[in-house]
């Protein structure tokens, strides 16, 4: 995922249709063995997810890799992870190869997404999904899940950029310049920057952001803002 800036302000208009969809899918589900997707997962467990894709257009681009890491309380269970390289339907665009450094040969060796989906769905279950611009990843996954079992992912969504926004800009005066980029969050939370554009690393960094932000929220700690606009330098230097 690239470091564009997202502000989730459209929550109410988004949530209502999603609830209706959820009800609809509960009825329409094609494969009854996946009913567990509508049950609440174990308390205090969430799953951080990230997909690497051939591009940023949900309609024309495809998933290349999927990574998911369970989080139980404050513990990121990297020892129990889901990671799959899947074949895209479309040929990979050269620009996208540059972004996430997967060669087509790496992709070709991976299982088909149809093979990966069952274990992915069992891995996440009904747990809330944590991500950075998680709506995009879920939209990408839904593109394959809908024809597969005739539902879209019903899981609650946790957007780390939104948690970050609340901690940092929730009380900001108007006209504050807002930076919700991945790099800015890493920096403010002092999360180690792992090599990016690797689905596992991105999911892991997102998980580390989540546990820190959640704790700060519980303790009512805010992230200090520093002035980001240029200050006039009277020396002319």
């Amino acid at each position, binding site marked *: 995922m690239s470091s564009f800036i997202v502000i989730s302000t459209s929550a109410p208009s988004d949530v209502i249709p999603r609830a209706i969809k959820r009800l609809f899918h509960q009825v329409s589900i094609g494969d009854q063995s996946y009913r567990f997707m509508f049950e609440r997962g174990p308390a205090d467990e969430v799953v951080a997810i990230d997909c690497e894709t051939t591009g940023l257009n949900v309609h024309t681009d495809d998933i290349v890799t999927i990574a998911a890491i369970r989080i139980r309380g*404050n*513990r*990121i*269970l*990297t*020892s129990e*992870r889901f990671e799959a390289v899947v074949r895209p339907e479309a040929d990979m665009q050269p620009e996208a190869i540059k972004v996430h450094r997967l060669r087509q040969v790496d992709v070709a060796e991976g299982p088909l997404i149809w093979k990966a989906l069952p274990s992915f769905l069992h891995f996440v279950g009904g747990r809330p999904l944590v991500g950075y611009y998680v709506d995009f990843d879920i939209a990408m996954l839904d593109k394959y899940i809908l024809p597969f079992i005739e539902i879209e992912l019903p899981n609650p969504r946790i957007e780390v950029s939104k948690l970050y926004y609340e901690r940092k800009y929730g009380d900001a005066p108007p006209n504050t310049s807002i930076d919700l980029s991945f790099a800015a969050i890493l920096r403010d*939370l*002092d*999360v*180690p920057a*792992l*090599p990016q554009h*690797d689905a*596992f*690393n991105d999911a*892991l960094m997102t*998980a*580390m952001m989540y*546990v*820190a932000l959640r*704790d*700060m929220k519980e*303790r009512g700690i805010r992230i200090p803002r520093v002035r980001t606009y240029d200050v006039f330098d009277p020396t002319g230097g």
Partner: protein
Amino acid sequence: MPKAFDAGNPPFDRLTPQEVETLRAALDITYFRPSETIIGQDTPAEALYVVIKGTIEERDGIDLLALLGPKDSFDSRALVYGKSGHAFIAREETLCYCAPKAMILGLIQSNPRFASFFYRDISHKLDELVRDEEEQRYGSLMRSRISELFLHPAAFIDAGDSIEAAGHMMHEIDSNALFVRDGERVGIITGMNLSKAVVLRRQSIQTPVREFAHFDVVTMRPDDFVSSALVLMTKLNKRRVAVHDGERFVGVLEDIDVLGFLASSAQVVAGRIERASTQDDLATAARETTAQVRALRRHGVGVEVIGEIVSDLNQRLFSRLFEMVAPAEFRTSGCLIVMGSEGRSEQTVRTDQDNGLILSEPVDEPTLAAFRADFSGALASFGFPPCPGNIMVSNPAWSKPLSDYLADFRRWIALPDDTSHLNVAIFYDARPVAGDAQLLTKAKTALIEMVRGERVFLAHFAHAIDTFATPIGLFKNLITTAGNGDALDLKKGGIFPIVHGVRSLALEHGLMETATDKRIMRLRDIGLLQADFARELSQAFQFMLMLRLDGQLAASAGTSGTLVRPSSLSSMERDLLRDAFQVVKQFREFIHRHFNLGAF
């Protein structure tokens, strides 16, 4: 399977690639909020933690013992021995890798080198560190390139030139080998070839060198390994090889230079001091002594050995200067002494002049004054900075008759003031370097006799170990902090408490040894220190001296920094430093009990 987990970080660098993969697969990451307890005091731990970001406090009750930062791991004791003597608490938002206990215990079983990290005993861990260092050192020497060595210049002579001409050329360029050009081919001729031709074969010195030269020249390239040169010389039984860079001959490598590179050349410096006829010669030798420290350390020589070599060289230097500067009567009726760390032979990188003169009887005052100025001035010009406390020959208080010293001792002990304890400490460490050593022996024996049984004086004397607290906040990895933010003072926090505590015990028991190491061994022999503890104390001391030396060498040459930057240490060294400070703490407690310092 966090790929980001750094397996190069000790002790994980001792795992095989397969073991690393197994470990990585089992790692979780845990977040701790500020003031959250990760391992409680005297409770077992379920995992070995490695800090990713943030800071961990290591506490003993309310005492803060250390701050751990990224790459530090904790707590091997809690894991292996079932409980930790200390508590580990997050100081700020912290992320740690957690390696499951069962997995670590399994690796300890299967990998002895990894296991050594978890030994309770610091001296065992140190042995491992030394072994690793030796491997590195051997490796680095053997990986050196020929171009790093001294090469004799490539000088050419024509095959038709005479033996006489060749001999003169060798003499001029101070080399024992010449290249011989004979049409297209190139050979080598050595001094030995010339001698054999003339002496054994009775050739005229006008004979052309062609028939004595060897044309089966062994050639190597400047970027070849020194080790290959050594192997080739041994195999072919050659004492020298030609060095050719692909275009031309660039020099001749002799076996003696390879050996000189592998060994150290301290004895060369010693010889130079002995042969010195002027103060300028001594100044050169003094500079070389400093260079020797760097070379010896790079070759992995132990810090106690470096201390001895440097003390020996300095002693020769002082002694030679004393012969040059002192009037004849001083040399027979006086004793030049060095004190403080120089006296204990623990001086590695040059600090300041701590020296004095004991005279058997009063001497002509103007002669003495001239000597004081000349001697201290010469040392200053050699690069020995004057002692800030003015404890040096140029100060009349430290160059006077024995009887005056004895009067001082009585005053220091009967009516101690601020400087008395320091003066006793510094004099008790004195060592003779030139003149009549009996004078120092008499003075020290008298000092010991006066102190004997003076419990109150000894307690006050020992109390100085509490002058500096063991520093905390040392282990935080503040790589971004500028200046001295994260530097710690090893001398105050670790070295001084050991030196002074040992000195106090040694003075109480009237030992004549000066080196801290030797004093510890004697205290062990008389049963005052337990053998195990004596070994740990001695090892911890050597380790801190080594770290200090590395810090001093790293700081620009000439400054005598005692600051060590924890962020520049490996996590293994930081772990050892934690253990070393633990030994210092135990030793302080021992001194407190022994001298009953609770009363202060």
